[in-house]
């Protein structure tokens, strides 16, 4: 059987930096083909070449046996290759039908939108998605937006479907549902490429796995046959030890959140009298289904939103619920927000600047009048080495250059560079590969052992269970249950959904 899509010896460099170094890939109709690799291994770049977004510097693209040169994404689409990107390409104020029409043009709008509407209903029905073509995209959840993306591609009659990290934005249950659907889709004859860094997805749902490392494809194997250890070794190059857990004595209460309430601008109550406390030397995990006030709680703790009532009490200075972010910094509250590019980094500024900015006020780099640039640079260089931040040639390069995992390491390097009293970490390992994830966890544990009080907010239950000393469950803006370590997974799961 001729392969559906074949990429041979693809090379691509960006401004001199080699992203793909002779990568080869081959997928067949009827198969789920996983493309596995760490952050920055070149998975997305390779698939962007296949989808016509990047023109390769060299190499051959073959579709069903014909060597072709793709002129762009619409050319790729016309040849039956469709890609669902990690960051959705949807026009938010448009309806679902309008978005799908935009990607699958029809000669006339009025008749076209009718045809598209029918096609969406049909396609969604086949996949088991429940989507109403007339809803506006900005009213949809992330999972629903992703369904729209998939339908958008399939309505165009695509035979080769590329999904770039589709489960990164989904909860556990949503991910499973999606992967089941993808599996069925492949069985009905579509060639599916699943870009991922999650080993368990590969083991459970992929028919073939191609492993990438450093811009090259290093292995192609059957995930049902190969052992998890072997796949991991091929992915990371070496085995990563899991952080050892040492129990520590917990100290006095460091942070107390009392009856904290916050109503969003649109009138939705996001925090409804949340209560919990965290002791020094303790990791307090906050679990919950996404959208139950975790994001707002994290923002209220770091000073990005001001709660209407309630208190955030810190043992050193008292109530800080209305204090400025600067004052919270002085009290050594470290912030690791979920959306690091929006809340933690200025992408257009240098890595050194992004590292140093949090300590300017303390006078660490000179007074108000003169900043000691050289000291900033020197400390940034040392920290980058210390925290293993890779992907930039020097600290004067822009922070936006760093891949997700390395950007997160930069944030952590900055936030931990002066011993924090309290750490607020929201989904700190989202989008990170195994090794980066382990590094982040190790840093959190080290901070806890150093006596910090750590609030760990995560939708990843495994992360919560493996790190937390105590676990709170959030539902509808409150902490509805608390568990001591060792906590039972089933109990937590019940608390998460039980308070509907």
């Amino acid at each position, binding site marked *: 059987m001729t392969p559906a899509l074949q990429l041979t010896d693809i090379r691509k460099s960006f*401004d001199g930096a080699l992203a793909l170094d002779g990568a080869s890939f081959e997928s067949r109709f009827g198969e789920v083909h996983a493309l596995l690799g760490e952050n920055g291994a070149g998975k997305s770049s390779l698939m962007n070449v296949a989808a016509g977004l990047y023109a390769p510097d060299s190499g051959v693209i073959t579709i069903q046996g014909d060597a072709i040169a793709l002129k762009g994404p619409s050319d790729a689409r016309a040849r039956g290759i469709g890609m669902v990107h990690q960051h959705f390409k949807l026009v938010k104020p448009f309806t679902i039908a309008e978005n799908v029409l935009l990607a699958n043009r029809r000669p006339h709008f009025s008749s076209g939108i009718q045809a598209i509407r029918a096609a969406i209903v049909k396609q969604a029905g086949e996949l088991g998605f429940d989507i109403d073509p007339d809803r506006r995209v900005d009213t949809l959840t992330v999972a629903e937006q992703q369904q729209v993306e998939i339908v958008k591609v399939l309505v165009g009659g695509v035979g080769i479907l590329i999904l770039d990290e589709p489960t990164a934005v989904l909860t556990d249950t949503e991910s499973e549902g999606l992967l089941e659907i993808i599996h069925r889709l492949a069985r009905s004859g579509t060639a599916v490429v699943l870009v991922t860094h999650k080993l368990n997805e590969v083991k459970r749902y992929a028919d073939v796995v191609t492993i990438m490392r450093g811009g090259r494809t290093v292995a192609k194997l059957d995930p049902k046959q190969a052992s998890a250890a072997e796949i991991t070794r091929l992915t990371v190059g070496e085995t990563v030890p899991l952080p050892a857990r040492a129990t520590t004595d917990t100290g006095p209460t460091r942070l107390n959140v009392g009856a904290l309430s916050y109503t969003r601008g649109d009138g939705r109550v996001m925090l409804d009298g949340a209560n919990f406390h965290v002791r020094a030397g303790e990791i307090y995990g906050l679990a919950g289904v996404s959208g139950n006030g975790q994001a707002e709680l994290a923002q209220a703790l770091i000073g990005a939103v001001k709660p209407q009532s309630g208190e955030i009490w810190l043992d050193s200075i008292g109530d800080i619920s209305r204090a400025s*972010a600067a004052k919270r910094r002085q009290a050594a509250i470290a912030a690791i927000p979920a959306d690091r590019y929006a*809340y933690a980094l200025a*992408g257009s500024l240098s890595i050194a600047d992004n590292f140093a900015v949090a300590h*300017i006020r303390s006078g660490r780099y000179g007074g108000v009048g003169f900043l000691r640039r050289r000291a900033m640079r020197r400390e940034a260089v040392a920290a980058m080495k210390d925290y293993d931040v890779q992907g930039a040639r020097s600290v004067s390069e822009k922070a936006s250059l760093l891949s997700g995992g390395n950007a997160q390491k930069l944030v952590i390097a900055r936030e931990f560079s002066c011993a924090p009293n309290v750490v607020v970490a929201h989904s700190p390992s989202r989008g990170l590969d195994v090794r980066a994830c382990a590094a982040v966890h190790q840093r959190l544990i080290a901070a806890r052992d150093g006596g910090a009080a750590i609030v760990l907010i995560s939708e990843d239950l495994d992360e919560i269970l493996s790190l937390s000393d105590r676990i709170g469950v959030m539902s509808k803006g409150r902490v509805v249950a608390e568990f001591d370590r060792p906590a039972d997974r089933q109990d937590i799961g019940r608390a998460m959904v039980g308070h509907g």
Partner: protein
Amino acid sequence: MTNAPSLTPDARRRFGRLTLDVRQSISPWKQAVFVGGSLVVGLALSVAILAVAGIAPGALATELAGVATAESLRGVLIQAAPLVLAGLGASLAFRIGFWNLGLEGQMIFGGIFAAGVSIYDIGPASTRLVLMGCAAALGGALWVLLVAFLKIRFRVNEIIATLLLNYVATYFLFHLLYGAWQDSKTAFPQSSPFRPFERLTEGVYGINSGLFIAIGCVLVAGWLIHLSRLGYYMRFLSANPTMAGIVGVPVKMLTVWIIAASGACAGLAGFVNVASQEGRLTQSYASGYVFSGVLIAFLSRNDPIVVAVVGFLIAVLFITGQTLQVFYQTPFAMVQMIQAIIVMAVASSEFFIRHRVRWIR
């Protein structure tokens, strides 16, 4: 399937093709070469257009060289002071993403406040000029802070607000000049002349002291932006204000102060114009400065030190333009067109600074 003729992969390999990469970083030298190169292209185009209009490049060179005479140079320097101050006002605001297009309104209020000090005879004669300068800075700052308040409190778009307030300021000025502050001796719509000790006169080496105000402001702004903590914070404020707030940058305070400083610079520009060139409050001492100020800020990439250089060059252009007007009957529109050509040339260099063009096979 598309029917458009396309190269086969084989043909592509033979001829190669042009690709564009987004640059990750660029050295300051290379950047300067690109900007300088496009500036040369812009100037060459301007010379060509002037040649078509009947001014031979040789004659043009003579006129430009004429600027170097002491008399012309003095004119250039007098002209440079308000231009540099206006450019500085624009660049400070632009640095934090506040599009202050109300430089003229702020200049007008700077002039009005300074004239007010003179008209109401406030303070002793020895400190009168200093007082007028301070009043001018305050006037410009207050006028722009009105918009800053609207923006921060009600999210009013500052581009429209500052621009339209120029008209309000202009008509308020007319209201004064046709009314309470009209010169009773001549009955022209202008104020009575300032007293000699209220004029900015020629100081050291015959250079108008307005220029020293401009240079002083440039040095202070240069220090603030390049060396101080404030300038560092400003970079974060424009790059990502949300993030800046979270890492402890005093966002609101900084925004308000920078906007006020921007208005104060424009106010000083107004003061320099009324107290040196005009010697009284006139109707038109601020007209045209929005465009020139924005132009200078843009060409200097909001760097205060470069603002001084560019401001001087624009002043040379103005003075040369005046000469051409007198001796060759070139319309003043020609000078404005040359300005526009240079802006476009420099704007296009941005493309090469951001992208790398490669020919690959």
